[in-house]
């Protein structure tokens, strides 16, 4: 299947140059050296072929052979993706483990999807149907959470001449035949798609439904629309990974793709050990049933890190095309950009900023553009939401990756080192963060909660920005110098910060809040503020307000009220009423 197309001439880490055939294609998958290391053609100049190699090149020497495959670097798509963990070029890590033990050796050639499993196929299409790409031929219960919809490949259309009867098949057995203008094509459940080419859809739609993550500061203050893109920038230890993990666990997406791109091995292990045990609050099945993991950790070959985000997004689009809402997390896109920089540097390309190649912005744009809420070829609605972590050097957001990313996302969750060091988690700075989806998703919130969500959210934001202004004054003169009305702003803001914005990912009750709990909590805090404000106007001091028992209740309610016991919110409302009314009596 692979023929010799060239001879290695120069080796510099993951980048090699070979001399050979002029028929080799750009982005073609090639195999290099006697060990057939996997690589991709990234440059052609006359008979000089530049290749990035996805495996360690130690020991490679000039004169080694290069083999062509005639195919672009692609992923395999079909049943069996969910519950899997792959490396950056979609090699299944558990199978590598069976082959080479606890350490990853190079030169291991494996098919991404297991060929021998049988999947219960149910046809939904009749023979004689005229089809175009993307239409669903049949379904397979891939996991208890997800029905896999086997689709006509996007570039195939014609008349269905045969569909396999309902039965269990392997992914390489034929399940349909389509008569096309190029003759009859046999289809299997296994399909391939080049990772750098976006999968087609019919039309793009608005992003007016929020991706609910269960994280209060995100959903209530800086919501992401389904099909949208968000960035989480932050210095080391600020909380990017914990936030991404929380979203992967609790987001109301049907499929989750988690890419560990140049990050820690243990973080992938954690997901791998935790997700099969954790139950998805919506489907009632283990989280792993809806998850695909892609792990190209920091110590794995750098070029494969570059490929990993494309591998992930292509799989995400595939499930989107079935009509699912997919959330993709990439931790961290900075490591991906650094992989680009490393390969570019070894090619001695002209650097733009901080050594990054001039095409950094274009690559980031291409990636984030693959997010979207679409009308699929099969006529369903599906979406891919992208949440990319960014790791700016020194935590300084003025660097190129953060800056360029900002141009292509509409939701910016800025993590703050000083909040993190005070153990305010998630350390999302409410003044530096923004969401451009607020107006888009407001109608959804109003419908879902029957409350004036945007009004309450804005009111809370006002209090918090007022707090920030007042605390500048406090720093100079101390809090006692402020009038009690302003001190109440500080007090309510403290409630909001400690009781609402802070959310402990490790607390069983606090880790995830439904929208009803979120809006209920917010309403209580604002109600407290309004009542207290009136009483202060009547002459009460802030210290009597501060001493009300309900203050402690409001701060602790996040860990006390389970999502299924929201009646407790009404009880707290009554407590506020009772305590305030009593106070009022004292000042009447």
């Amino acid at each position, binding site marked *: 299947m692979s023929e010799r197309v060239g001879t290695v001439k120069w080796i510099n880490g993951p980048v090699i140059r070979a001399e050979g055939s002029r028929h080799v294609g750009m982005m073609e998958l090639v195999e290099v050296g006697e060990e057939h290391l996997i690589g991709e053609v990234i440059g052609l100049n006359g008979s000089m072929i530049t290749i990035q190699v996805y495996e360690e090149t*130690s*020991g490679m*020497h000039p*004169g080694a052979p290069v083999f062509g495959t005639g195919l672009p670097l692609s992923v395999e798509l079909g049943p069996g993706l969910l519950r899997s963990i792959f490396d950056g070029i979609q090699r299944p890590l558990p199978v590598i483990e069976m082959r080479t033990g*606890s*350490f990853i050796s190079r030169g291991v050639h494996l098919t991404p999807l297991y060929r021998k499993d049988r999947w219960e196929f149910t046809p939904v299409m009749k023979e004689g149907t005229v089809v175009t790409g993307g239409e669903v031929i049949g379904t397979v219960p891939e996991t208890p959470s997800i029905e896999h919809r086997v689709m006509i490949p996007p570039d195939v259309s014609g008349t269905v001449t045969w569909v396999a009867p309902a039965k269990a098949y392997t992914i390489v057995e034929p399940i349909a035949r389509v008569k096309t203008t190029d003759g009859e094509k046999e289809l299997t459940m296994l399909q391939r798609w080049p990772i750098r080419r976006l999968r087609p859809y019919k039309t793009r739609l608005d992003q007016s439904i929020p991706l609910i993550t269960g994280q209060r500061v995100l959903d209530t203050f800086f919501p992401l629309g389904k099909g949208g893109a968000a960035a989480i920038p932050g210095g080391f230890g600020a909380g990017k990974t914990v936030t991404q993990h929380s979203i992967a666990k609790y987001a109301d997406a049907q499929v989750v793709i988690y890419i560990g791109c140049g990050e820690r091995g243990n973080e992938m292990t954690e997901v*791998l050990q935790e997700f099969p045990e954790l139950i998805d609050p919506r489907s009632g099945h283990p989280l792993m049933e809806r998850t695909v993991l892609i792990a190209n*950790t920091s110590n794995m070959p750098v070029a494969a890190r570059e490929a990993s985000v494309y591998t992930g997004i292509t799989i995400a689009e595939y499930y989107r095309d079935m009509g699912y809402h997919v959330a993709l997390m990439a931790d961290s896109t900075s490591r991906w950009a650094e992989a680009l920089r490393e390969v570019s540097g070894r090619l001695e390309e002209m650097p733009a900023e901080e050594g990054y190649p001039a095409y950094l912005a274009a690559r980031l744009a291409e990636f984030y553009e693959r997010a979207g809420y679409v009308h699929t070829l099969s006529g369903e609605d599906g979406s891919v939401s992208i949440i990319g972590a960014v790791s700016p050097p020194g935590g300084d957001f003025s660097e190129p990756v953060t800056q360029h990313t900002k141009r292509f996302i509409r939701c910016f969750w800025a993590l703050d080192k000083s909040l993190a060091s005070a153990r305010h988690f998630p350390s999302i700075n409410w003044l530096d963060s923004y969401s451009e989806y607020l107006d888009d998703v407001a109608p959804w919130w109003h419908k879902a909660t029957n409350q004036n969500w945007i009004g309450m959210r804005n009111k809370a934001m006002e209090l918090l920005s007022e707090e920030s202004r007042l605390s500048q004054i406090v720093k100079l003169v*101390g809090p006692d110098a402020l009038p009690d009305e302003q001190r109440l702003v500080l007090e309510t803001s403290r409630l909001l910060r400690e009781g609402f914005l802070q959310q402990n990912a490790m607390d069983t009750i606090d880790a995830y809040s439904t929208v009803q709990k979120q809006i209920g909590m917010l309403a209580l805090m604002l109600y407290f503020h309004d009542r207290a404000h009136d009483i202060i106007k009547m002459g009460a001091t802030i210290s009597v307000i501060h001493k009300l028992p309900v203050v*402690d209740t409001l701060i602790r309610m996040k860990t006390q009220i389970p999502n299924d016991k929201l009646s407790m919110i009404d009880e707290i409302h009554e407590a506020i009423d009772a305590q305030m009314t009593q106070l009022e009596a004292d000042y009447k």
Partner: protein
Amino acid sequence: MSELVDRGGQEVVGVSRIEGPILVIENAGNLGYDEVVEVIDSTGHMRRGRILEVSEKMAVIQIFSGTTGLSIDGTKVRIQGSTLKIPVAEEMLGRVFDGLGTPIDGGPVPLTNHFADINGQPINPTSRVYPRDYIQTGISVIDGMNSLVMGQKLPLFSGAGLPHDQLAAQIVRQATLGAPAGADAKHAEDFAIVFAAMGVKHDVANYFKNSFAESGALARVAMFLNLADDPPVERLITPRAALTLAEYLAFEKGMHVLVVLTDMTNYCEALRQISNIRGEVPSRKGYPGYLYSDLASMYERTGRVKTSKGSITQIPILTMPNDDITHPVPDLTGYITEGQIVLGRTLYQHGIYPPISVLPSLSRLMKDGIGEGQTREDHPHLMAQLYAAYAHVQDVRSLASVIGEEELGDVDQKYLAFGKAFEGKYISQSFTENRNIEQTLNIGWELLGLLPKEELTRVSLAEIEKYYKGI
């Protein structure tokens, strides 16, 4: 398969350029990328080098011991046909090696036919076991606030002149790896220390050696020394050689290995030097763009795997140039390691030992290593509360410096008292004091007693009921 000839032993002549530790040769057709070569000068003296870049016409070689005395004519390069490998054996414990793994203690070369590539191979994430076993170090700020877990990589971020060596030595002496907290594991068969020095002074190496000797652990220690006056390029190999032995001991011999690497900043400087001589495009402060991946290729050689009961715990030490935590070396390290212990100059100047800056310090693996069944059920909340309170102390202190202490409100006064006591009683302890976790947690509650109950919103009401003895 015709290319698979044995290329070992062939010689190449034709040096075209020598610059710093870099040698460029012509007609290098048979050399492999990243392989080792022997370079023989005109007097017949041999030194070793590694291929950084190779084409049919030329090869760039990095000479470990430097190029002094090499000439364009008369230098020969002998091909080894393999990447750099070192012997690994249990007998290497109790021994001292140079930065390339050659014995320098007068003893024999380790007798083994087990050779391992110094670059190792990445651990498959599916083969890892998530680290969860708490290690008691006897140091309150670490055990209580930033607990160390077996299989964690937790660096010390320090500054010139700060007592990071003492702290590391105290951790090594008191840490109870592979044994229940508090028990003495030092003499256990399955415990080992691998120590790698990169560009540090002789007295630092001696300090560690004496400290290992005093605690009776010397027979369980392997030392790889590249000192300040040793060739800088060699220190690119030293931590890798050390980790190669550590991996062998941990994953093939089932030992619990503690690896101390000092000073990573010197390592990074050597890497920068090579990169600059080669004219590579720098990223920040002249460091190469691949510094992150390069550091990760060492730090990630930590942890536990399913197939062995052993573990590697890493404590890299680095000095932050100008005490700047955003400098590329601490910054990229922090992005890879599982937390960091940061030493602070202000605390040190106030005579506090260990001068650990609590707020920027972090242990990411702590969450699974503490609490009920590991340390005590109140530990996670207590830690969060101490953090929050101490963070608030900083605000109060800066307010006090503006308006004066007397002007502070009641509660803030209490925070000031808490801050002082926290630094004096919790952070501060002597070099020989070994506190158990119970003592550490109890001191924490004692200090929280200085604050009013309403302030303690991070601990649960039940915990307050049980442990709070306040005003």
